[in-house]
């Protein structure tokens, strides 16, 4: 195991940020800590980095006990949500910082910084200051800076949170490629389930300071452990005791034994996907996802009466 947290508890005054949390992260993996704000995911990351001291529990990094170790000695690279660039230093000096304080020879530093800037596509921008970079560039600079001392573990706090949607998608793909090249054990914090599902090998879902489930993306989506995970990882409808994903609902114009009647409130076409909002005869509201072809075939319009059947549902 590259990283292990055992029964970690952390309080801030009366607020319990982490409540007996245990996770294991496999060496070389890309793990997401997923949860709503205030769920404790960033605190867990900071405890692993040594930026917060746990009130109880232990942390192991690469098999070594690290609970009481200062952040300087943990061999951890950390990328902050707002990147924490050293504003008074150039991009080059930012990236070189971790090496120059280790008094590495000048030539070695120059070589490594050059390689890293190449890797994060900032070659040629070394003389700029962080304030002269775009958000995405600043993020890549922070990543290069964290990677420079060759950490055993890379920790990213909401790495895409402060970027606009298009840059975010680009950087996601880029990070995934980078991870495949470097194989540094990586944990990232996110509140975006799509980001977690797309990037991670393994997802830790957190809520109110506790771990709700740890699973690979597919398992998490198909076999959520409880109602919280079901509702947080992807959109969901609640019908009585049952939980149904919007794409697990079929619509038809003719009733059969297992269908329920519903009226269409709204049809939204989003390219490939069509979303239909319905009200059932018992007043329950439903959101349905169809492909464009399915929707076109049915010729749906608001006000129409349709018949609803659920393909797959879960009861907890």
């Amino acid at each position: 195991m590259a990283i292990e947290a055992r029964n970690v508890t952390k309080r801030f005054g009366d607020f319990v940020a982490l409540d007996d949390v245990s996770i294991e992260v496999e060496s070389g993996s890309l793990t997401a800590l997923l949860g709503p704000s205030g769920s404790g995911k960033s605190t867990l990351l900071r405890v692993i980095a040594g930026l917060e001291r746990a009130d109880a529990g232990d942390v192991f990094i690469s098999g070594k006990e690290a609970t009481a170790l200062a952040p300087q000695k943990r061999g951890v690279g950390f990328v902050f949500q707002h990147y924490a660039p050293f504003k008074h230093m150039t991009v080059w000096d930012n990236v070189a910082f971790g090496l120059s304080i280790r008094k590495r020879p000048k030539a070695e530093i120059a070589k490594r910084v050059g390689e890293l800037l190449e890797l994060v596509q900032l070659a040629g921008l070394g003389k700029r200051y962080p304030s002269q970079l775009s958000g995405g560039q600043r993020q890549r600079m922070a990543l290069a800076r964290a990677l420079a001392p060759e950490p055993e573990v890379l920790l990213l706090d909401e790495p895409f949170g402060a970027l606009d949607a298009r840059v975010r998608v680009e950087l996601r793909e880029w990070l995934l490629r980078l991870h495949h090249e470097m194989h540094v054990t990586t944990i990232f914090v996110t509140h975006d389930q799509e980001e977690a599902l797309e990037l991670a090998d393994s997802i830790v879902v957190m809520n109110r300071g506790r771990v709700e489930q740890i699973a690979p993306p597919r398992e998490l989506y198909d076999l959520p452990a409880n109602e919280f995970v079901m509702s947080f990882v992807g959109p969901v409808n609640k019908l009585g005791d049952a939980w149904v994903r919007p794409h697990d609902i079929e619509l038809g114009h003719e009733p059969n034994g297992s269908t329920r009647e519903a009226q269409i409130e709204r049809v939204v076409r989003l390219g490939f996907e069509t979303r239909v909002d319905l009200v059932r005869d018992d007043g329950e509201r439903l959101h349905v996802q169809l492909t464009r072809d399915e929707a076109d075939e049915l010729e749906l319009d608001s006000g129409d009466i349709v018949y609803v059947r659920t393909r797959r549902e879960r009861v907890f």
Partner: protein
Amino acid sequence: MTGRRVIRLGSLAYLALILVAPVGLIFWRAFEHGWHPFWAAISNHDAVHALKLTLEVTLVAVPLNTVFGVLCGLAIVRHRFPGMGLVNALVDLPMALSPVVVGMALYLLYGRQGWFGPWLSGHGVRVLFAYPGILLATMFVSLPFVVREVVPVLREIGIEQEEAAATLGARAFTTFRRITLPAIRWSLAYGVVLTTARCLGEFGAVAIVSGGIAGRTQTLTQYVQASYENFDQTGAYAASVLLAALAILTLILMTKLKPREEVHGNRGA
């Protein structure tokens, strides 16, 4: 348009009347009879000694209050400790308190009947009417400036850069030297300039504790006052010019620093 012009002319006239005229008059009176009387007035033994004493006190008080100011600022911003509010308020005390009261307080502490006075004089240490007393008084009145300049900037830069340095392997002192200090350098320089100006100009507190013995414990401000009281107007004006020149020099340094600080502030994102 005319309203704006009235405001501009009005404020300029006010400045001229209140600030420029008196200071200009001093320069004019000092050089009224040419360079020679001026030079004679400031090159006599007592004047030179007073200038030297003032500079010596300033050169010790400013570094001490700079180091203390940075440490105190870090303590106020970065740590939570009981009595923090009290420390924060205490730092402003020298601003609020009249320097004369400071002098009296030192007198009560270190005087012959004071708390520490008898014990110290028993060990052969003289505080009042000597260099240590002048230094203490000057340090007291010039204490808040560095703290007050540094604290808001420390608050603004936050701790993320320092945390980032820590995860990159930097120890506390390396982080301070390479991250924190460069981030606060302009406000620190500004605080140092203000502290220096205050040290050079201090009169009230020093007047009480120094005794003002010519050629021994007389600072430059006290030399001005003594010359004036002895009807040595040329001497008084000449020493005043010296003080004003030092003040103007620090002001020039200050204005040189200020725009750079603003540029630096705008660049941050």
